[in-house]
């Protein structure tokens, strides 16, 4: 009997699982890759006199929309190859662009040597690619030989976008990401503003940058260099991880083509760099100082060398976590391009060469939006990915479900630059402090460690900044009275006392009470200053950041002598550092607005819908039941304990358990309900108790129709299909709690009389689980008799009782009926019924076979073999079995 319920529960669970599985499938179902790309080799001529042939390994993605479409050139990052941008290319092609990706000279399968985006080499290569695009039937032309084309790319690829735009007027829009304005300044920064020749060598990044393409290891062993190279590539082309692998592959492929199995001395020294560039790097890396030649060479590859020549709409996406090409480079690019009158937008996203989220989807959306607007001329300014002159990705706390950081995009109509829309001043305090440069420059303070952020997959929020004692001067503000949002480069003027040339690193920490100080984006401002005994004043431009300093936090300026990422002098020295003015100038941009993030609409809608749905579920459930007519009590049969008329119940399989059953029980009768197993006795009794719903007909007890929970059932005492007790409670507790559950007054229970019938003695105080079958049976009959109900219904009451108890039970039942009450006893034992009952109802296969006083029934039967009629004979007659 346990099956139907269990099966239904199972069905619920199964259907829920199926639903969830369907949801997963739907979400994971891959969208059709409609873009069919084509690999090809495009030969181009470059070199100062256009006489060097380079075979560029390229892939062309025709526009999914067909016809002539604007073209996009997708450039890869340093150490990567055309494979690094495959995913993005496919996406753009799907959005109706003819996309061309290529491995830059010196990378991947392309031939040639790396010239760092030189106008003589890489730029000419890309011009050759644009020529090629102009001949494609898939590409829309602005004029013969002039395709409608945009260039996008990150890092090294971003720079080629800028440089090509400067040298080729056919370029119509560019989206350079995390790239440089002045490569010399990026590698030799100086926060005092004296230029790269005075700059501090960014040795770790420079080393990674140059060795990543050097590929100096033997083929097959190149994964080390490739992996390192991937750092630049990975950050440039989020999602990371795959970038590094691809870069490694690219490097290996390149090596396999470029040289013999055993690399020669030049190869291990310079890899695939142009010798001229290799020489320059070796020289400056050895000395740690930039020469004018080196600066000139690096600037040839930088937008700084082409002022006023980039005149196309430009979307600059720069990473906030980028110690290689910090935000200041995007700022310089933005100002230079905006000066020509071309539209420029700037976004500082959560990413960059030091890691961070990467925001691949958002960047992709903005890029597409930009090209839609300036290549297709369709995208609305507020279209996909949003559009604003200035966008800053900010921390939106943590997603409560995933515990992962949430990013918000604050936007402004105007790009204010690093000096900010408005400035506030916070006073710092601190005495003049001596700081030492350790001999050999070690141990060094730690800020951003190149590659580490990417490796940790960090959010960029966590910093591992560390200052060595004795090497850092500290100046701190009072706790901030109100939160201060810094957007841009703070500035401060310090004085450096001592002698000789000092290499210093300034950084601004966010210090809260209990936590470790946070160095925003792990950025430092290196500077080189000549110290004097009178104190050399120097105005330091701190790294550009976007950070909210909370109320109660302090700002802490630290000036240290070392940093792990930079070349510092080996000679020991001691300087003194003091504040020239205590005023720390903080730029801000109050115009930046974060979109409101109120609770999602469903937060309120869902519960309301649920309540409505619940009400519908409950009310419809009720309505169907309420349609029954004839619930009013029947006055005529009010004195009759039980009237059953036309009762029918089907099993689930349609077979009738009870079929058109009608009979009537009068007061004072002891009625025997007789029938073989499966005759429908128990089903009838369950309907009598309101446990199951009849399919047809009705049952009336004292004139009241029986329904589940009908109050008239309180006049019914029942024992059907075995006892039901709480096994952990004693017999007495069970009866008492049962009576309390009826909610009726305790004195009505007649508890002692009932317990007497049970006859359990001391066992009454034991837990029911220790009872024998007969004891439970007697306790259950006692429970049925609690409150002396007017109608007592007992199902096989003598099962499990011993003969004396059976005799006693007969006596009890007869006595019970004599008091004007009515007893119905079901049994398949004929002798039992014969001896106990005054009346009998015989059922067979759900139907009534006979009803009437036991005597009448016996009278209809002829005497057999001289003896009196036996009920057994009558019964077998009735149900049609032969004797």
């Amino acid at each position, binding site marked *: 009997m346990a099956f139907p319920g269990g099966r239904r529960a199972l069905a619920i669970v199964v259907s829920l699982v199926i639903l969830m599985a369907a949801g997963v499938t739907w979400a994971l179902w891959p969208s059709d890759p409609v873009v069919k790309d084509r690999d090809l080799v495009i030969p181009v001529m470059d070199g100062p006199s256009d006489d060097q042939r380079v075979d560029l390994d390229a892939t062309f993605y025709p526009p999914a929309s067909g016809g002539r479409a604007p073209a996009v050139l997708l450039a890869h990052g340093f150490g990567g190859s055309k494979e690094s941008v495959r995913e993005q290319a496919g996406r753009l092609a799907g959005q109706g662009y003819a996309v061309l990706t290529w491995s830059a000279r010196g990378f991947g399968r392309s031939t040639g040597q790396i010239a760092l985006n030189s106008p003589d080499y890489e730029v000419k290569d890309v011009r050759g690619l644009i020529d090629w695009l102009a001949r494609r039937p898939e590409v829309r032309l602005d004029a013969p030989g002039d395709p409608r084309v945009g260039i996008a790319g990150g890092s090294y690829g971003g720079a080629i976008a800028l440089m090509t735009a400067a040298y080729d007027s056919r370029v119509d829009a560019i989206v350079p990401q995390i790239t440089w304005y002045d490569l010399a300044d990026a590698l030799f920064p100086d926060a005092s503003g004296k230029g790269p020749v005075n700059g501090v060598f960014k040795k770790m990044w420079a080393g990674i940058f140059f060795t990543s393409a050097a590929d100096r290891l033997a083929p097959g062993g190149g994964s080390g260099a490739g992996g390192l190279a991937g750092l630049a590539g990975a950050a440039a082309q989020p999602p990371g991880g795959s970038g590094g692998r691809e870069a490694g592959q690219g490097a290996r492929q390149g090596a396999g083509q470029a040289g013999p199995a055993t690399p020669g001395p030049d190869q291990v020294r310079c890899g695939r760099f142009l010798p001229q560039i290799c020489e320059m790097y070796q020289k400056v890396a050895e000395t740690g100082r930039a020469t004018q030649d080196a600066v000139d060479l690096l600037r040839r590859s930088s937008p700084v060398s082409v002022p006023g020549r980039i005149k196309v709409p430009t979307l600059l996406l720069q990473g906030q976590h980028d110690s290689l090409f910090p935000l200041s480079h995007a700022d310089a690019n933005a100002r230079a391009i905006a000066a020509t009158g071309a539209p420029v937008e700037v976004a500082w996203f959560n990413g960059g060469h030091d890691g961070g989220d990467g925001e691949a989807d958002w960047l992709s959306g903005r890029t597409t939006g930009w090209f839609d607007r300036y290549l297709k001329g369709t995208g609305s300014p507020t279209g996909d990915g949003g559009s604003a002159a200035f966008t800053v990705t900010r921390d939106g706390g943590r997603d*409560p479900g995933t515990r992962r950081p949430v990013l918000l995009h604050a936007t402004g109509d105007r790009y204010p630059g690093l000096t900010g829309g408005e400035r506030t001043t916070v006073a710092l305090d601190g005495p003049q402090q001596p700081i030492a440069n350790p001999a050999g420059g070690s141990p060094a303070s730690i800020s951003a460690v190149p590659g580490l952020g990417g490796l940790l997959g960090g959010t960029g929020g966590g910093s591992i900044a560390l200052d060595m004692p004795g090497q850092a001067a500290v100046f701190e503000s009072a706790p901030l009275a109100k939160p201060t949002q810094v957007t841009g480069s703070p500035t401060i003027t310090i004085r450096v006392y001592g002698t000789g040339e000092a290499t210093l690193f300034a950084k601004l920490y966010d210090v809260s009470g209990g936590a470790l100080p946070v160095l925003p984006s792990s950025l430092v401002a290196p500077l080189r200053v000549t110290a004097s005994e009178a104190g050399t004043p120097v105005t330091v431009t701190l790294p550009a950041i976007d950070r909210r300093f909370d109320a109660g936090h302090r700002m802490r300026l630290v000036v240290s002598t070392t940093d792990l990422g930079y070349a510092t002098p080996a000679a020991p020295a001691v300087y003194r550092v003091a504040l020239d003015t205590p005023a720390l100038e903080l730029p801000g941009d109050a115009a930046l607005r974060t979109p409101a993030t109120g609770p999602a609409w469903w937060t309120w809608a869902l519960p309301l819908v649920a309540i409505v749905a619940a009400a519908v579920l409950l009310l419809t459930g009720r309505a169907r039941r309420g349609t029954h007519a004839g619930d009013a009590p029947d006055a005529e049969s009010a004195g009759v304990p039980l009237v059953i008329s036309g009762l029918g119940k089907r099993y689930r399989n349609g077979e009738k358990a009870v079929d058109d059953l009608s009979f009537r029980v009068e007061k004072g009768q002891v009625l025997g309900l007789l029938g073989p197993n499966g005759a429908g006795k128990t089903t009838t009794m369950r309907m009598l108790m309101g446990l199951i719903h009849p399919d047809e007909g009705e049952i009336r007890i004292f004139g009241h129709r029986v329904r*589940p929970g009908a109050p008239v059932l309180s006049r019914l005492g029942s024992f059907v299909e075995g006892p039901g007790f709480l096994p952990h409670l004693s017999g007495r507790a069970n009866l008492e709690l049962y009576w309390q559950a009826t909610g*009726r007054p305790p004195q009505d229970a007649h508890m002692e009389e009932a317990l007497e019938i049970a006859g359990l003695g001391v066992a009454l105080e034991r837990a029911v689980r220790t009872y024998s079958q007969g004891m439970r049976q007697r306790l259950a009959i006692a429970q049925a008799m609690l409150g002396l109900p007017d109608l007592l219904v007992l199902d096989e009451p003598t099962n499990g009782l011993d003969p004396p108890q059976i005799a006693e039970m007969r006596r009890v039942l007869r006595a019970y009926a004599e008091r004007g009450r009515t007893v119905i006893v079901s049994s398949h034992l004929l002798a039992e019924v014969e001896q106990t009952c005054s009346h009998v109802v015989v059922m067979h296969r759900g139907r009534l076979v006979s009803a009437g006083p036991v005597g009448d029934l016996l009278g209809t039967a002829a005497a057999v073999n001289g003896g009196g009629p036996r009920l057994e004979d009558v019964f077998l007659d009735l149900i049609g079995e032969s004797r």
Partner: protein
Amino acid sequence: MSPNRPATDLTGDVPADGRAAPVAQDGPDTRGGDAGGRAPGYAPGRTLPLRVEFVRQLRRRRTMGMFGVLLALPWVLVVAFQFGPAGQGQSSLRLSDLATAGGLNFAAFALSVSANFLLVVAVALFCGDTVASEANWSSLRYLLAAPVPRDRLLRQKLVVALTYSAAAVTVLPLMALLAGTLAFGWNDITVPGTGEVIPAADVLPKFAVVIGYALVSQLVVASVAFLLSVGTDSPLGAVGGAVGLVIVSTILQAVEALGSLREFLPTFWNTAWLDALAPEPDYSGMVKGVAVSVTYSVILVALAFRRFRRRDVVS
């Protein structure tokens, strides 16, 4: 038949909430025969009082066992932390490493480690067992024939099961607070991740919010278990089904490809209470969690009532 009598007074369909009961109960007994079709003193609204149901459930071994585990767990954790290698020197900012920072930190830790499974099992047990075990014991049919109206039986059982569940969810962090305070002192709370320190007095009301949220977030488990309990007479099936659903939901939650669909998974927001302990509490996640939880449980409980009303009790 007496058509002039108000039918509502005579119908056996007294609503489960008992509101209609006083009408039937106090009205003069104008009908002939005995006590208006009901035994003297019987009123549907008085059946199965909460006190009785509490007692019926309280003396069960699984009730006592579950509370025993919940009350002992904090002490076991305290002992475990005492045995751990002392003074590792590195001050990590994970919740588990901060557990010994003070009573409040310890309580937050205890709640976080138990909310995902132990409390789920406890709640599923109290709510999934309640009807199914009665069916299993066959005592359900005698309660229904007493008669306790079906809606009322469910309501009373739900209230008691939820109360036990609430007690389970409450008692664990409170005991952890006590154990942690005795073992590690009454210190200000150190926020995981950032390491910021919030005064204990400020965080105490938030702690109440946390416990309240933990309660609400377990509502889904409770109502799933209850729905299954109504449909089966195998108590372990109901409990296991509810726990299984939580496990499936937790697994799906890890599938990032589902994107924002996951927000509607019943377990997605279960850890949102951590936001309340942040220096700047963000309640948006908790609000969403409450919305999802309430949505599921309202519908599931309504389904349970609907099923039970129509069900043929054959166990």
